[in-house]
């Protein structure tokens, strides 16, 4: 079946970022079509834990985007989407095992507070009030009430449904249509062209490929992460709990394996354990060293987990850009092309803010945040 469609904007990618972009674009009055070569949430969204975190971000543009996104997620939840996407304002607890790590955590928290983050110090003897099953002997921690969670695949699906955009799954974008002067005029798919004056690249880890089809470069690379999933348990872990060294790993540029435990319960019962990071291309095969390190880290935080069974583990590929910031905004190299990808491990959380910003620039409004740090062509300049 071949069909030719005309609309205001084509969003490439039916993950959570594409879904949020479609939602805010449609709300801004744009006739929106979402196209994906796979199903909804078939890429990194489907492998995500659903973290809406402010706690793990150092002050700067990413934290500003996280705070904007957190407000938008809360607003969507208030509109009635909360239950469908399993939105939970559970808060985060970051723990430090040593006085040195605690000093680093306190310094980070002070900077975050100045940027608008709520960060409440928790002395060691108060940690059990927040998390009764934590290992004894920790130096202290920090409570971040703004940290929240959604179920990522359901979030993508329900944002798409709420957008009322047309969603074309199982259709790969094989080319970006360009007009005279290089202006983008839509996309070519295996089953017909979609004509639109604007195309949004929300293809996540595969965003570099979509950019290349428009003749521009965007150095998105996969950064593999494993998640361990346990058998269903009664609620024992109340927050997102992680060790203070997680923030350093997130910001690291190393390609080698890094793991720092991030542990949380889910409404369905299983406990999710992240987060390993390594740059090994799109290799999905099991790495026992990685999952062993996750298990060691998690049982170090919560000793009772030693007797709990891991049911499964899976890998996902975070869309990684060299400076750890996403690409958001118009691409001056291809007028009409907009990027909304490269969110690394924070795409679920940052999706709403990203979608809102893209919708604002699509409709000629002033974006809520300065898009300068997210400029998609920033890497080309560095190379030149």
């Amino acid at each position, binding site marked *: 079946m071949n069909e030719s469609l005309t609309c205001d904007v084509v969003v490439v990618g*039916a993950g959570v970022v594409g879904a949020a972009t479609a939602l805010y674009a449609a709300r801004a009055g744009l006739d929106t079509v979402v196209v994906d070569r*796979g*199903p*909804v*949430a*078939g890429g990194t969204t*489907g492998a995500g834990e659903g973290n809406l975190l402010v706690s793990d971000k150092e002050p700067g543009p990413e934290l500003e985007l996280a705070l904007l996104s957190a407000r938008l997620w809360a607003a969507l939840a208030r509109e009635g989407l909360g239950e469908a996407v399993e939105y939970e304002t559970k808060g985060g607890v970051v*723990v*430090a095992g*040593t006085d*040195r*790590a605690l000093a680093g955590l306190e310094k980070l928290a002070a900077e975050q507070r100045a940027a608008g983050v709520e960060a409440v110090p928790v002395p060691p003897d108060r940690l059990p009030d927040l998390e009764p099953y934590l*290992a004894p002997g*920790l130096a202290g921690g920090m409570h971040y009430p703004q940290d929240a969670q959604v179920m990522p*695949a*359901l979030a*993508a*699906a*329900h944002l*798409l*449904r709420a957008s009322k955009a047309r*969603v074309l*799954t*199982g259709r790969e974008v094989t080319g970006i249509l360009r007009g005279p002067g290089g202006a983008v005029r839509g996309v070519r798919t295996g089953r017909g062209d979609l004509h639109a004056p604007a195309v949004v690249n929300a293809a996540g880890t595969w965003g570099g490929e979509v950019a290349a089809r428009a003749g521009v470069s965007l150095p998105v690379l996969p950064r593999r992460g494993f998640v*361990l999933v*346990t*058998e*269903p348990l009664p609620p024992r872990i109340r927050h997102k709990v992680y*060790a*203070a*060294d997680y923030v350093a790993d997130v910001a690291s540029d190393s390609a080698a394996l890094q*793991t720092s*435990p991030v542990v949380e319960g889910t409404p*369905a019962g*299983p406990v999710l*354990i992240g987060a390993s990071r390594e740059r090994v291309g799109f290799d*999905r*095969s*099991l790495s*026992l*060293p990685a999952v*062993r*390190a996750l*298990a*060691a*880290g*998690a*049982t*170090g*935080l919560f000793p009772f*987990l*030693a*007797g*709990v*069974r*891991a*049911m*499964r*583990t*899976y890998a996902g590929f975070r869309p990684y850009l060299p400076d750890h910031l996403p690409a958001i905004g118009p691409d001056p190299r291809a007028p009409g092309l907009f990027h909304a990808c490269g969110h690394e491990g924070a795409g679920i959380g940052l999706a709403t803010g990203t979608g809102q910003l893209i919708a604002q620039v699509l409709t000629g409004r002033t974006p809520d945040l300065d898009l300068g740090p997210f400029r998609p062509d920033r890497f080309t300049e560095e190379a030149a």
Partner: protein
Amino acid sequence: MRTDLAVIGAGPAGLAAALAASARGVRVTLVDAATRPGGQFYRQPAEALAASRPEALHHGWRTWERLRDGLAVSAVRVLTEHHVWCVERTPDGFTVNALLGPEQEEPVQLHARAVLLATGGYERVLPFPGWTLPGVVTAGGAQAMLKGGLVVPGRRALVAGTGPLLLPVATGLAAAGVEVAALVESTGPRRLARHAPALAGKLPEGAGHAAGLLRHRIPVLTRHTVVRAHGDDRLTGVTVAALGTDGHVRPGTERHLPCDTLAAGHGMLPHTDLAESLGCRLDGLAVAVDTEQRTDVPGVWAAGEATGIGGAALSLAEGHIAGCSAAAHLHGTAPGPAPAALKARTALQRSAAALDSAYVLPAHWPEQITDDTVVCRCEEVTAGAVREALDLGAGDERTVKLFTRAGMGWCQGRMCGTAIAGLAGCAPTPAKRPFARPVPLGVLARHHPKEGPS
């Protein structure tokens, strides 16, 4: 523990492989989860039952005796009640990670230079309205009850589904004193007849079962299917109906058959979890092997149902060939399998392929699943919820699982995978199960330098 060749699975393929390699001077360790070797096919009655004539329930009892006695005098080390959860590659070979004992809590590692996967198969399960009622069992489950527990599942049984397993189950139940109300086979008689010449390899066995059907006066309904199982607390009867040539149920052909047991079988699927986490290439749903039964991962062989469903005789031949090949490669000599095994494998693979194309699922079986039918029992997900997920944009097994949790429970989709793929309208794909069984986090963590928060 160290060994030259670790054989995983002590069914027909694993036994034949272990004996062949051991006879050629290889140090072999045979690992199995059950309390005794034999696998599903040579499943033995529990010792406590002191069965006097276990052979009455078995085909090829003499072959089993030969394997059993051969194992007893061989140098093969047998590790029973070892539940393997993952085999990993190491710089000098492989580490087989297992959990010991009925509680599966004590970790054991076996280091081997080579691995032979004889992990067998498991039953393909298709849901239908009422399939979760007590009294509904799988065909293989009914057979296992007969062989292992020497118990009969009920008084009046219906055997239904498709595939060659239905015949021995029907005759086995009848021989054990169960009244078999009917054997309901969804494949039509003409389709079976068309493949008859190619099925010749199975003829002696098949003819025996056919005679059994006659002897026990078991009515056979071909091109029929189960529409619904009835009952409040347990099964009281089954509605069956005829299938049209288009694969849809023919309206007006429904009839009710009272029974207290329904043994439903829809064929088998290969166990490929260990092969997949080792990185072995799959061919469709089975482990891909060459003529020597080697996978594409050096040092890993596979034989039996894991490489494609073909029955016990084929598994024996493949196991023998694999064992000979593994021994030769470990010794650096040329493999010399028995020519009879090579010949048998060729003939049996041909009849397995014929069976495979003869017995196919009814074309439109997913439409029989009503919205209120539970398809994933672990997570209690109904067909309606799966259809809703498809409507939300899920398009395959993985995204249906993400949206509904179907397949995320204890069985990890082994029971519901076929149904979900069918409802999603896509071909079943091999599930990714890096852990072949659940493993305690403490066991996982043990082989890692302790890492606490810093």
